[in-house]
């Protein structure tokens, strides 16, 4: 009898002791959730090399009207009138290109060379340069935003190419950019040719990185997800040089007095404002505004204000427009 009692107690306690052992389950589940891999930027498919598409002179834009309509009096049935009715111009911009188009945390404003040009367009429509809304667009989104009508105009360092002209219309060139090099002040590198076997930073998926890979002797491309990541890589000594469009490099130089822009133009990058193919009258209007800015010296003033300190040279002449049609 006592044996039966004992065996009952034994069985009961064994059953109780069986409750332990789920900690490993909780730990396993917690650890596997915590081990969720950090997402990485998927390398976008290599931008199609500028296909030998011919479109005559890609820089040729629509001829502006002989005289611009007075601010506040946009001709009826034009896109400018639609913008005027809406009450503000909607512009797609970058917010990370220092001096060119960037968010200034100290005053909470989006500022820069491109921003001031866009404000002049708003001023020409409303006679009030604050009647403008800036929308942040990524490189991938910017042409689609124009096509869908989400924004009226994009000024976001868009290089005019024949391929892009099939998607959007371009204004006359407002800035002649060039792919160049940024190196530490102490560096003796003067051109891409001197960088064979050395690390050169550029943005993942950009045309710049293709140019680096095609250079001979071949540098080692160092791709980063966002443009400013290159400056961190250079400041930390992980790369020997950065290659990008000169407005971006000037923006870097403005943030760090220990670097310099060097070398010849690796490839020219004429920037135009992208506007929907459906609104040729707005393209003409914008070209008219740009012509006025060049003629009145406002373009030069804006250039001097944002970039003059860092280019070290006198203000260059504004880009010469090419019109056809």
């Amino acid at each position: 009898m006592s044996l039966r009692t004992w065996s009952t107690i034994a069985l009961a306690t064994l059953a109780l002791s069986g409750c332990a052992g789920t900690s490993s389950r909780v730990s396993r589940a917690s650890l596997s959730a915590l081990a969720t891999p950090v997402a990485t930027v998927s390398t976008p498919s290599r931008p199609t090399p500028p296909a030998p598409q011919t479109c005559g002179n890609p820089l040729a834009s629509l001829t502006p009207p002989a005289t611009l309509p007075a601010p506040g009096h946009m001709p009826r049935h034009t896109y400018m009138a639609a913008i005027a009715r809406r009450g503000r111009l909607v512009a797609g911009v970058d917010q990370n290109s220092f001096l060119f188009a960037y968010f200034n945390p100290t005053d909470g404003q989006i500022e820069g060379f491109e921003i001031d040009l866009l404000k002049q367009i708003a001023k020409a429509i409303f006679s009030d340069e604050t009647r403008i809304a800036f929308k942040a667009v990524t490189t991938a989104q910017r042409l689609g935003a124009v096509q869908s009508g989400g924004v009226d105009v994009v000024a976001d360092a868009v290089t005019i190419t024949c391929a892009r002209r099939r998607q959007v219309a371009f204004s006359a060139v407002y800035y002649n950019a060039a792919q160049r090099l940024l190196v530490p002040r102490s560096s003796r590198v003067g051109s891409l040719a001197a960088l064979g076997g050395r690390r050169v930073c550029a943005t993942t998926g950009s045309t710049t990185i293709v140019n680096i890979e095609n250079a001979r002797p071949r540098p080692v491309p160092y791709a980063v997800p966002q443009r400013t990541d290159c400056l961190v890589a250079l400041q930390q000594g992980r790369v020997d040089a950065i290659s990008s469009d000169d407005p971006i490099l000037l923006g870097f130089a403005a943030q760090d007095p220990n670097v310099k822009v060097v070398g010849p133009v690796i490839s020219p990058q004429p920037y135009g404002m992208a506007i929907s193919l459906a609104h040729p009258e707005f393209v003409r209007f914008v070209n008219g505004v740009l012509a006025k800015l060049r003629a009145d010296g406002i373009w030069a003033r804006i250039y001097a204000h944002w970039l003059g300190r860092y280019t070290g040279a006198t203000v260059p002449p504004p880009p010469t427009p090419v019109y056809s049609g």
Partner: protein
Amino acid sequence: MPQTRAVSARLARLRLASSTTPGKLVAVGIGVLLGAVLFGLVAIAVVGDRRDAAHAVSSDSEPLLAHAVGLYASLSDADATAATTFLTGGLEPLARRQRYTADLQAGARDAAALTASVRGSVAASESVVAVSENLPVYAGLVETARADNRAGLPVGAAYLREASALLQTAILPDVGVLYAFAAGRLQAGYSSGTGGFGLIAVIAVAVAYLAVFVLAQRWLASATRRRVNDGLLAATGLLVLLSAWVLVALVFQQNALGRAQHSGSDPVEALSATRILASRAQSDQSLTLVARGGDQQHPADFDAVILALTGARGGLLALEASVSHNGTSIKRLASDLNAYRAQSAALDALVAQGEVERAVQEEIAAGAGGRSPADVLDAELASRISAAQVSFSSAAEDARTALSGLGPGIPLTVLAIAALALAGIGRRLREYA
């Protein structure tokens, strides 16, 4: 040769003696003594093992786990706080700044405590060294980001991304190694503190010893025609009492350890993992806004983290539900998480429309009083983790005190059992003297 003869003669006398009643009484006495020694040793060993295991769990393994998950949570919160604070520009709210600093200090304390506790494991030691090496680098990157941000330089955002990438891809995986080590050691403590083998051994020895008494009394009753031997009866009763005490204490102790796990360390682990991932989601959301539309990596990571939290098979929330005994508290957690997701979806929608600035302003406004959905969720999880740690401590304390009386109790009672039994046998033996 004569020696051999002497030995065999002695053996023969012994055989003769053991066949007589007094001889048999002496044999029973020896059996009672041997049984007392065996029972006492086994019970002391098993109880000692269990007590050591319970002690190790409460004063060694659990603090180790607390330091590991604490380090993980502090650093994750530091990263989220640094990113969210960055959005406010050069003039950081003091409370956020202090929270970041406090997180880093808590992390450094945890890392120091872990350094001492993981000496036994090469992998864990290497990990804690790597964490300690990388923490100052991380802090340096964050400070560079702050200084640039204060100066209005966009490169600050890149330094902040760099800092976060260092934390998420190098430092936290090392902390994960420490966490896995701590969780494994705690599990080993639970196993040895609740193992069935010791219990079975005690039961087996107790049953065998009891059988000795039962058989001895049965034989005495038939051999001496006296029904009851007072000494043996008292010894039997005392043995039953002691066995019951040992078994009840062991069962109580292992139940308390089970409670320490189920309402203590299990919830601590599940809730901490949730809190850590919520911080990572907040880092992703803030870094996305910091990049002002130029970022594809952090939105993707945000989605992956939310999937791990609420995922296809319920994610961590389902795990919490499975370890929690309170359905309404899980609903509260789920609704906090939903509020957070709703807020970030609203921000996403603004960013998608290009209204980054409005999204940033809304995020700053939401966090102004420290009561943003992310803050509410984090505070809720932190208070639950503390509550689970309190549950753990009280259950672990129960597990330790359950066995405390047995230390002196077993040897004294076993001595008493042997003394009573021998006294009973001695009375019979004297009748033959």
